[in-house]
Structures are given as C-alpha cells and as structure tokens.
C-alpha cells in the first residue's frame, strides 16, 4: 500500500444493537404500535383481573331496577349498580363483558399458539425436506386454504361439537395453513439466498446456520402474522359465538354469544350490543395496531 495512505472508519452515529434491539427501539417510536399496546393492556388486564374488576357474579340474576313496573322483564338500561345495564335474565352486563375478555383471550391466544405450532411444524418439515414431502404437505395446505375462513371453523365445530377446546381447535386449524405457508416460503427463500450461501461457503456449521441465520429471518414474518392472527382469532371466536356455536356454559360469558342473545333487543336495549361489540373491536384494533407496528419495525428495509 502506498505510504501515507490513511484508512478512515466513520463511527456510526448510533450504535446498532442487533436486529431485535433495533426492532424494539423502532417499535417504541411507533406511536400506533404504542396505542396497540395500550389496547392490548386493557384487554389482557381485564381478562386477568376479571374477578377484581367485575362488581358482580357473571352468572347470577339480579333484581330489576326499583322503578321498573312489576312483571317487567329484562333487559334493563344502565344505572349506577349496573353500569352497562342488565340482560334479558337480569344478569350484570358489565360483569359479563369483563369475564368475556377471559374467553376471548384464552381461546384467541390458545388457537393462535396451537395454529403456529401445527402450521410451523408442517411448514418447517415442508421447507426443510423439500421435494415430495413438501409437495404433499402443501397440497393439504391448499385444500384447507380453499375453504373460506370461518366456514372451516364452523364445519369443525359442527363436527366436534360446541365447547372451548373445540372452538380453539377449529380456529387454530383455520390459522395453521397461513403459518405453514409463511414458514415454508421463508425457509425456502432463505435457503437459496446469497447470505446463507455465503455463510455456508465460509464454513458456518449447519446448526449455527439454522439457528442464527435461517430461523431469525423466517421468524419475523411469523411473529407479525401471529399478532395479526390474534385479532382475527378474537373476531372468529366471537363470530362462532354469534352463530350459536359458542361455549354452552352460561357461566362463561362470551362476547359473540352475548350479542346473539341481544339482537332481538336492538331497538329496546342497544347497550347490550354496544358494549360487547366495543370490547371485541378494542381487542382486535389493539392486535392489528401492534401487528402493523411490528411489521414496520422488524423489517429494517421498510423505512418511510
């Protein structure tokens, strides 16, 4: 090298803290995502602390307001003791909305986790094995994807009967193909990509290649999709409930089921529609906001 030549390295203005650290920082600067966190916090907090938040018992029947004419039946409009009113049987709507968060969270989360596991398993096998196994598994995925969303869930619940585990499985099965496709596609694309080729050519061991290079890169779309799927799952669970396929136990209130029971009173008691409906929307908005925020912050190329 010529004498006196100076190599200069510019100090990066901000130290990079790796993919996850950067993503986390970007997420915290993403205002919609933060709002999503707030909504999810309200939803999860309500579900976890339901017994503390709810003033009454979700299954108990309470007397009508004192000024109701004798012989009148529910629903009764909101008043201080029953903030969201009382349903047809006189149960406290507020308490039921609060407890409803538990079912939504439980079934929603359960079905997405379950869906990610089945779908991820199938996708990983297909993506890693390739060839014939890939072909067969992906045809199965195609079949499941051909059946429109909630219709598949309806079929499965009709087949397995009503109940929380059945609903969870039904929604999980409708989710799973998406994750299978995502993981498979990601693995295939990455397997062929230049940087894995590069890593392989400099002798990075296969195990390290899988754990450090391939998995993190195919995982990010799964994380985003799972967050967004939580929103869909909550809506689908409520949809099943609305169609009369919700959990049968009256002591475990479910938002969709509560809505079905109230459609007849749309004119007289809109509050019985409004509050459970709002609860569903807030939960779904929360996960959708967070999912979008995650997508933006996990993809470093997706800059504004």
């Amino acid at each position, binding site marked *: 090298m*010529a004498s006196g030549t100076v190599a200069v390295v510019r100090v990066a203005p901000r130290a990079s803290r790796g993919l996850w650290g950067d993503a986390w920082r970007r997420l915290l600067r993403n205002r919609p995502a933060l709002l999503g966190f707030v909504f999810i916090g309200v939803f999860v907090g309500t579900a976890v602390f339901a017994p503390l938040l709810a003033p009454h018992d979700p299954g108990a029947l309470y007397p009508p307001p004192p000024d109701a004419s004798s012989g009148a039946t529910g629903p009764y409009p909101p008043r201080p003791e029953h903030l969201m009113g009382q349903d047809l049987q006189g149960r406290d709507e507020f308490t039921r909305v609060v407890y409803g968060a538990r079912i939504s969270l439980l079934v929603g989360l359960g079905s997405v986790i379950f869906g990610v596991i089945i779908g991820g398993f199938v996708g990983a096998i297909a993506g890693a094995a390739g060839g014939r196994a890939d072909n067969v598994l992906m045809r199965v995925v195609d079949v499941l994807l051909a059946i429109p969303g909630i219709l598949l869930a309806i079929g499965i619940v009709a087949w397995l009967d009503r109940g929380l585990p059945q609903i969870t499985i039904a929604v999980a099965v409708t989710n799973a193909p998406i994750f299978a496709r995502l993981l498979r596609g990601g693995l295939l694309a990455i397997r062929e990509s230049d940087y894995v080729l590069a890593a392989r050519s400099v002798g990075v061991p296969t195990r390290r290649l899988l754990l450090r290079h391939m998995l993190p890169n195919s995982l990010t779309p799964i994380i985003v999709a799972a967050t967004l799927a939580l929103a869909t799952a909550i809506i689908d669970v409520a949809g099943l409930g609305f169609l009369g396929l919700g959990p049968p136990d009256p002591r475990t209130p479910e938002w969709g089921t509560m809505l079905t029971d109230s459609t007849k009173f749309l004119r007289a008691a809109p509050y019985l529609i409004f509050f459970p409906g709002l609860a569903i929307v807030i939960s779904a908005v929360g996960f959708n906001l967070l999912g979008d925020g995650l997508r933006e912050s996990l993809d470093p190329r997706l*800059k504004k």
Partner: protein
Amino acid sequence: MALLSVDGLVVRFRTHEGTIHAVNGVSFDLDEGETLGIVGESGCGKSVTSLAIMRLLPKPAGRIEGGSVRFDGQDLLACSEAEMREMRGRDMAMIFQDPMTSLNPVLTIEEQMVETIQAHRKVGNEEARARAIELLTIVGIPEPENRLRAFPHQFSGGMRQRVMIAMALALAPKLLIADEPTTALDVTIQAQVLELLQRLTTETGTAAILITHDLGVVAGMTQRINVMYAGYIVEAAPTAELFAKPSHPYTVGLLHSIPRLDAVQGEELIPIEGAPPDQRRAPVGCPFAPRCAWRLPDCWTTNPPLVPVRAAEAVVTTGPGATHRVACHNSPTPGEAAAGRPLREGFVAAPPPSAVADELAVVVP
C-alpha cells in the same frame, strides 16, 4: 451565451435520518452541441445534479435550496411545473441507468414512443407511429414495425437502452442527459451504445451531459469533464487536459484505480482508500481530506475553491479552450500524478486536528 448554465446549485434531501447534503454549490456551463462528462463515485451528487436540472428530484424529500439553473435563456428554477413539463422531453431529455426498469413493463414500445411524441406535437397516431419506426431504425433496431408491438421484457438490455435513446431523441432536444447509460449493460454492448449515443448527438448537434463513474467511458466521448466528489466539483478540464495533467488527488486516484492495457509494466493499481464522507453532516474543510495522501493541515479546515490550475489565467467555462480548474490546496505534481502518490522527500499527510479526530476514527497504517 451558454445553452445551460448551472450556478451555485445546492440540493439537499430531508429524510428521517437527517438532512443529506447531496450537492453543495455546483457551477458549470454547457454550450450548444457540446458534450460534457460528469465523473465521480456513487453518491457524489452527479445524478442528483442532473435530476435537479430536469427538476425531477424525488418529492418531497429532495429540494433545490440554492443557486440557479438557466437553460436556453430561461430560469428553470422559476418555471412553473407546467412549463417544465413542456420542456422535458422536447427541449431536454434524459436517459437513465437501468433500461430494465426505466421502461414501463405493461405498455408496448409503440405506446411509450407514441405518447412521448404526442405529448409535445399535435400529430395523429399514424404519423407518430411512422416517426417511432423511423427512430427505431436510426438506433439500429431490426424489424422496427414488428418490434413496436413488443413489450420491454421481450427486448435485451442493450436493445432497451436503444429504445430509451430513440425516445429521448424523438423530439430533437437541445440537451440530452445520460445518467450512467451503459452501467447496467454487458461490456460488449456498452461500446455499441456509447458509439450510438456519440454518433447521434454529433449528427443532431445535441448538447449532452454524460454521467458516469467510469473515466474510461467519458474518455472518448466528451470534450470536457467535471470530476465530482461529495457534492462538489473538484476538478474541471477539457478531456485531453484532464487525462494528461490530473491535478486533484481524487482524479489521480480515479485514474489509478482503473486497470489500463497500456500501463507501463510494473505500474501498480492504487485503490482509493476509505469511503466517501457521511453527507448527513454539513461539510467542513475539503471533503476528500480524510482519504487524501496529499493533505495539508489546512485541508481539514478550509474547503479550497475551484480555481484555475495556472493561476491568474482568465476563466473560460465552456468549449475546447475551457480553463483547467481544480479545488485543491496541494495539487499533485505531474510526476506525483503519474506515480499515484506524493514523491516529495519526507512528506506526510497532515494528521487531523483534534476536533475532527474526535469524530473520525482515523487509522494510520
């Protein structure tokens, strides 16, 4: 009166990462029929300069924040968007780097050529089509009648660039800006396309600005060359003069980083060390100082102006007799330029002052 006169042009980009100082006061003139090369590595502001002239900077990030651009007697920066639209394609045309992405994939060649002509001339479809066929013939596309109906993806890269040239010359513009027109092409095709460009601009008397990172490309094509670095013109000279007597360390570096067939046996290829400066900061001192082997203490603090190499010479900005100018405190001597490094006894490049050193990690080998 020059056809194009750029004076003190400043272009900045406002991004989420901060302000990018893309072009920092660039001035040059271009006569009718003249061919000017702008040379520099990617990010030096050469493409931004040309987009600014066309007023095609990406909106809303890119903004012209200073200087003036006069073209054919008009102040381009004062023109309305509608006036600019009329001039683009008709008086000033542009060819871009990547012919793969510069043609619209869902429109046929015919549609894209005819719409160019009809945007500026009131002619019928038949007439425009005939002109398109004529143009394709001129740029050397076989069976132009049939090829008109084809889509861009059915052409090879070189053929697409020929279509781009045909389209750019459709309305016989006074100025043609070619931004890295051959960079994306195979080496064998590059020469053909360059030859075509040169022949057509000469025949029609079109003034041309050829932008490239490759000194080899401009060598035979242009009358004058501006060398750009970090948004500045660091050296400007007639082409032959620049190759014979490079006077800026960066130009010297560029000349030494291309392998040459006629190189003297044993002459070494000297790469330019380091990377261009971070343009998110307002420049202080000479932008090339951190990479320069000739730098003096002054280079860290004062950015030298572009002045004639032979001091006291009157400045001529255009034509074959244009003044050789350079922006350097310590120009390499002809001997040093040939060697590619300082030859003065005991000369050591000035270390950065402490204020600068804090911001730079300077590695002295």
